[in-house]
């Protein structure tokens, strides 16, 4: 079933079909939110909110853009609103502060070995310094395992532009990551 038909059928009340939409684009939505720098524990809640917002606006989706890029924009808006709200709270520690104060990063909570957790933390720090588009492209490609084509559709970019952002992102990371972290690999 093509995406426009799927959206129309959901709009007309076939709610169960929304599960297909989640299956197809769940990774993209989660990756888009994580790529904005949202803490791992909040990603799922925000992804849920993004899908609910998408459901509410589904009747307004006319197929002018690809469904993936429409969902991507919704996810990014949800993540940005969340980050904005967080920045308004005076007592909310930044990710950097939380890390420095020794709070357990997500990978440690997942039960990863300390060495891996340290590498993850270093990578998260380095990725925070990349441009938004590089960070999102890298996280969608490597973490969510989306294809170049899917990323290009979601970000409304040319395929070669996506490749360039990923290549430049990796190049920038190699300069930002410490030698010790890379030598462990």
């Amino acid at each position, binding site marked *: 079933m093509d995406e426009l038909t799927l959206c129309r059928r959901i709009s*007309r009340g076939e709610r169960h079909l929304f599960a297909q939409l989640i299956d197809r684009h769940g990774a993209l939505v989660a990756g888009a939110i994580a790529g904005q720098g949202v803490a791992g524990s909040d990603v799922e809640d925000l992804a*849920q909110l993004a899908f609910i917002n998408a459901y509410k606006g589904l009747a307004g989706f006319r197929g002018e853009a690809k469904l993936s890029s429409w969902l991507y924009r919704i996810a990014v808006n949800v993540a940005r609103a969340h980050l904005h709200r967080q920045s308004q709270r005076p007592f909310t520690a930044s990710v950097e502060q939380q890390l420095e104060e020794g709070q357990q990063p997500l990978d440690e909570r997942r039960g990863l070995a300390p060495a891996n957790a340290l590498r993850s933390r270093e990578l998260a720090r380095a990725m925070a310094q990349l441009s938004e588009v590089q960070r999102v492209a890298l996280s969608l490609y490597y973490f969510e395992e989306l294809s170049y084509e899917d990323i290009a559709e979601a970000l409304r970019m040319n395929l070669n532009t996506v490749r360039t952002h990923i290549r430049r992102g990796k190049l920038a990371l190699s300069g930002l990551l410490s030698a010790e972290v890379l030598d462990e690999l």
Partner: protein
Amino acid sequence: MRRIVKQVLSGKSEKVEALLREQHGAQLSPQFKRNVLAAIGRLPEPALLSPPARPRDLLYALRLLSTGERIGLGLALSASVALLLPGAGDVLALAEWELADFTVNFSVGSTALSASLLSVLAVVLGLAFMAGVGAFASRNHLIGA
């Protein structure tokens, strides 16, 4: 020397690649789909929720225009509004202009025609509006199909 630098860079790049590949994405829990479906189950059908179509269409129409066209449209609109304001004639008189100066004279064959600039402007804007409506209609028709 260049070869050594290249080797070092490619070695570093491979390590970055390996580091990225060992990471995991923001994995959604098995209950995620069920939670979303339960949440939307409490909402009315999307078709019943009013989509914000009206302002979007207007913005879309403005986005269709190039920068030059937008400036031109803005100037034409502000000029026509200014001409309709009371006292516009007096302001023009300061610059030694009269409203009659804004009359376009042209001839078709042996017939001489004259029209005020305002009416020409109204016709042009009307045609542009009709063209815009036509473009919308055809676009929505294609999407509908």
